[in-house]
């Protein structure tokens, strides 16, 4: 019951963001950014929190989505839904193709391989500079209004309209992920996390399920990446750098990796803290680093984890 109330309160708060966020001295784009990162981290959490695969290179698929969307708008057609579709496919298919290389691995090895694979895409985007803009990033494209018959959604000029597009995308992503986690697929993931060897003995093809988790997470993160490119009308190699991958993971831990909405809480705290710290001090990286150390040492279960019974960590 309390859960239903808090989830309902969350949705109402999200719908009303364009009213209350400027009132507390912030701006609507920050709300969009938070929802975009929430989609990405909740997607990553399918692998990290629910299947137990330590994916530490997720920014690669986020960045591929962003570049896919940006390059579609710049070189192919000024069409926002098409950009989202192509970007999502680019990142998602990359994760699907690379899945077989990581699905057999576990723990530390899984982490190392996913980090290193992420760097491959980073260098492709940095060095392929006549197409991607190289180190400076990809600019020169902008999100276009969406047309439904005679109805036009003015996301190009209105930050508020774009926020509602992001909220719609967030809702769709949440519905998809929630459905998957309630399905046999989702239950199998959790069982693999809890006892991989036992699932193998039961005849479950564990590797295929890990692959599925990695691929689906790739699609969802790439989906978020496309929206990020549309939000700023810009993307850069920083969007697929391993630092961002690490940020994604710490946001999940901060919110609680065992809870469905945990990553959202983590994203809110982390993004707001980063936004604030970088506005008051040049040494914000040190503070972010200290947040990492603090969370790991003192707060490993995250905000939502505190409300749950003690779990082994």
């Amino acid at each position, binding site marked *: 019951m309390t859960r239903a109330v808090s989830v309902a309160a969350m949705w109402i708060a999200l719908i009303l963001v364009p009213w209350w966020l400027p009132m507390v001295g912030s701006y609507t784009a920050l709300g969009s950014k938070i929802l975009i990162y929430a989609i990405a981290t909740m997607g990553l959490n399918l692998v*990290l929190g629910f299947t137990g695969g*330590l994916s*530490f290179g997720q920014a690669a698929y986020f960045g591929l989505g962003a570049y896919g969307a940006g390059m579609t708008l710049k070189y192919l057609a000024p069409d926002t839904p098409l950009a989202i579709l192509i970007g999502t496919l680019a990142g998602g298919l990359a994760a699907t193709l*690379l899945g077989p*290389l990581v699905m*057999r*691995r*576990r*723990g*530390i*090895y899984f*982490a*190392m*391989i996913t*980090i*290193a*694979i992420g*760097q*491959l895409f980073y*260098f*492709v985007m*940095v*060095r*392929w500079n006549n197409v991607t803009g190289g180190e400076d990033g990809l600019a020169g494209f902008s999100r276009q209004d969406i047309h439904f018959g005679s109805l036009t959604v003015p996301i190009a000029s209105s930050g508020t309209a774009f926020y509602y597009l992001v909220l719609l995308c967030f809702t769709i992503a949440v519905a998809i992920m929630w459905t998957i986690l309630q399905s046999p697929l989702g239950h199998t993931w959790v069982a693999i996390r809890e006892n991989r060897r036992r699932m193998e003995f039961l005849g479950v093809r564990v590797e295929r399920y890990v692959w599925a988790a990695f691929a689906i997470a790739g699609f969802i993160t790439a989906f978020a990446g496309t929206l990020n490119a549309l939000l700023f009308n810009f993307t850069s190699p920083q969007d697929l750098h*391993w*630092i961002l991958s*690490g940020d994604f*993971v*710490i946001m999940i*831990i901060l919110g609680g990796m065992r809870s469905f909405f945990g990553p959202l809480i983590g994203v809110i705290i982390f993004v707001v803290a980063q936004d604030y710290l970088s506005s008051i001090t*040049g*040494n914000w*990286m*040190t503070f*972010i*680093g*200290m*947040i*990492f*150390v603090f*969370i*790991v*040492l003192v707060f*490993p279960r995250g905000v939502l984890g505190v409300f749950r019974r003690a779990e*082994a*960590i």
Partner: protein
Amino acid sequence: MELLLFNAFNGLIQGVFYALMALGLALILSLNSVINMAHGGFLVIGAYLAYTLSPYLGFWGALIVGPALAGAIGLLVERVLIRPIYKRVDPIYSLLLTFGLALIIEDMARTIWGPQGLPLEVPDVINSPVSDVYFFITGYRLFVIGVTAAAAIALYLLLRYTLLGIRIRAGIRDLETTAALGVNIYKLRALNFGFGCIFAGLAGVLAAGVLGLTPPMGNSLIMPSFVAIIIGGVGSLFGAVLGGLIIGLAAGVVTTYYPAASEAVIYLMMLIVLVVRPRGLFGEEGLFE
């Protein structure tokens, strides 16, 4: 041809740095079960302390004291931050902790020494080209290879013949049994972490002589070191060294023909190794999984 030789040699030097980094990383990974994301940070610490101390101690003194201080700071970090989380099974925590440390160290180096690049003065004795034709083979570069080889051999002898080394190897095989036989594994892991950081510091000082010093210098070296470990095979120190040299050389050779792919080729090689021989060249099946 000369260009190829030039780039291959440059790549080999780069590979030597990867190998030194990978050696320390692999050592820490094996016994401490920690992916030390802050390894690039310890490289930065070693390099900048050597830079600061070299006016007083000279290059030779700094070459010894810089890595030693990196090792000492490593011991401290292990004691205060890493030791409390050994009992956590999930490797995610040590990964994130060292990741945070990496951010802190890079930012601190930028605050203390400034964001601009600094040169590390190398004595003229070892800095002149050894041949007129092959101008790129400077004495310093040969010196880098020599020091690295000496350090790797010293580590090998330590692990092979000393009581401490035997205990470290035993701990890598089976930590629980080693502890049951009366070895203080906390002390063992602390010393091992320190050794790993000494290698990072050494890589930093040597690299500073070639590439100069910048606060993010560790970042560009740590990822290829991961690849070196994966290619060489997780669990094999020799594999880590060989992996580092191979990818450095490959990057150098590719620079000659297609410079834009010189970084990507390292990661492509890793993918190929993962497809053809998932455990790496000298890795053991099923280790760390």
